[in-house]
């Protein structure tokens, strides 16, 4: 019974925690621009994150070593350092975008000045991270992030033509602007598979002290949690397709996303959407701050873990505090968080192979994994998704330039 309860809690947290500012921005913009045509890209992105999260969770459980440990060991110090730097740059950009997103959501809720809310947001994050245990951080933000399910209710109220929606799951490009279409496909894949998610997931397995007995929980969390989280992405895209596409609206702010819930459901829909965005983005900010600290600690062999007291892991603690301060410093300059989001997602796509290749290699290493090494099915999915990841990593920057950052 306890295991069922643990699985349910983990799944709920994964649903709420899956969507971050990158997913919110790219899914909404893709729906507004291409209607349902890019739903297939979400399916591939969710498939990839399920496959690799399950894998790195299993590696962490069996070897008691988190993903970045594996990255360093497999790639060696030199290339490992490149992976670390690339990962940290992407983490920092993502964190800055998420912190900006928190302030934007708070501003839409409270109407106070952006910079004041930016400061309140980042101090609030620091207090929450300092005061709450790991499980509670994960669950509180995951559960309140579930308020985003309001978009799924909104979709039902908007009554889309389900036959047309279904065509979006088959890759096709009914557009003359293939570069923009490609840019959004890459962005959606990137938003679903950002490296911090797997780093955080594998470190989380160690934080929660999973043992091989928890491998079922690992699999259920990854498969069911992320699949249902993917539904939130579908809901955001379909909402935008129904409301914004017919009116030629190009959503450029978080307010536009929230408007998508307000139009079908009024004030209640709006409040649920804003609370959902606040907690989803807040949870992602904590994930990225931790992910940055995990990567540094695991690479340099420091003591790490939220389960340790700050004095027992001082460099790890200092690392997440510095991440928060740097993220805040980037957004306080006045740079648009939505623009930072777009760049962070595209650059994370470029860095994806450096994260995913070592995980696949370690998960196949029988010396490491023994009987828990990848089976045939995990390898078919793992290699298949890796090929897609390599293609999008190569295509990301050229598409960004050719599509004028998706502006056409």
């Amino acid at each position, binding site marked *: 019974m306890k295991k069922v309860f643990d699985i349910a809690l983990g799944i709920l947290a994964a649903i709420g925690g899956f969507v971050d500012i990158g997913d919110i921005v790219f899914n909404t913009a893709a729906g507004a621009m291409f209607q349902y045509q890019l739903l297939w890209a979400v399916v591939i992105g969710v498939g990839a994150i399920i496959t690799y999260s399950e894998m790195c969770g299993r590696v962490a459980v069996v070897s008691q070593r988190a993903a970045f440990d594996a990255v360093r060991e497999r790639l060696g110090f030199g290339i490992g350092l490149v992976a670390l730097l690339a990962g940290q740059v992407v983490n920092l950009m993502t964190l800055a975008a998420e912190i900006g997103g928190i302030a934007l959501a708070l501003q*839409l*809720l409270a109407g106070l000045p952006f910079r004041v809310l930016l400061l309140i947001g980042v101090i609030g994050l620091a207090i929450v991270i300092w005061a709450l245990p790991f499980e509670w951080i994960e669950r509180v933000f995951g559960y309140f992030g579930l308020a985003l399910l309001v978009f799924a209710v909104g979709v039902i109220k908007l009554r889309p033509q389900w036959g047309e929606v279904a065509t979006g799951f088959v890759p096709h490009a009914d557009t003359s602007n293939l570069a923009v279409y490609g840019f959004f496909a890459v962005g959606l894949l990137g938003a679903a598979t950002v490296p911090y998610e797997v780093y955080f997931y594998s470190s989380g397995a160690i934080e929660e002290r999973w043992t091989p007995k928890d491998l079922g929980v690992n699999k259920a969390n990854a498969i069911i949690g992320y699949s249902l989280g993917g539904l939130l992405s579908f809901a955001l895209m379909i909402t935008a397709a129904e409301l914004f596409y017919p009116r*030629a*609206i*190009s959503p450029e702010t978080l307010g536009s996303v*929230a408007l998508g819930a307000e139009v079908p459901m009024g004030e209640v829909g709006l409040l649920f959407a804003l609370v959902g965005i606040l907690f989803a983005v807040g949870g992602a900010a904590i994930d990225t701050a931790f992910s940055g600290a995990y990567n540094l600690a695991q690479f340099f062999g420091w003591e790490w873990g939220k389960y340790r007291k700050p004095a027992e892991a001082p460099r790890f603690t200092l690392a997440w505090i510095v991440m928060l301060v740097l993220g805040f410093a980037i957004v306080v300059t006045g740079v648009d968080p939505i623009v930072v989001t777009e760049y962070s997602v595209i650059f994370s796509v470029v860095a994806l192979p450096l994260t995913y290749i070592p995980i696949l290699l370690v998960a196949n290493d029988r010396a490491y994994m023994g009987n828990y090494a990848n089976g045939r099915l995990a390898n078919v999915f793992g290699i298949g998704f890796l090929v897609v990841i390599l293609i999008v990593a190569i295509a990301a920057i050229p598409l960004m330039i050719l599509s004028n950052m998706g502006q056409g």
Partner: protein
Amino acid sequence: MRGLLLLWATVVLTAAGCGGSATLTEHSLRKEAEKVQSSAAEGALLAADVARGRTTEPFARIHSGKLAEQAKRVANVLRTAKAPGLEADRRRAADTAAEVEQSLEQLHSAPTDRVLAGRLQHALVREAAAAGKLAG
């Protein structure tokens, strides 16, 4: 040293050039008109919710303010740019962008005035249609 001076001169001249008015092609003019249409159409959705009392004051105020900023940016570009052979369309687009900005500014200043919001909704729908024609 001469190379450095040349580089400095190039940077200064380029920067000076950036401050001048841009030239709009048919494609870029259409893109600017699309932005005007987008701000107006989104503003109309928001105004409709304000008129029906289906939103909150902070949301209506902040979001209409952001949309007004967007429209203002586009209006500035359209007002100062040159569009050889397309001057009439550029002027129409600039005027429409200014009207959209004005409507959204009014919504921003009175986010709880339901009667005004109803009027602004209709105005914004008209402005979105006008910009849509220019966007092709």
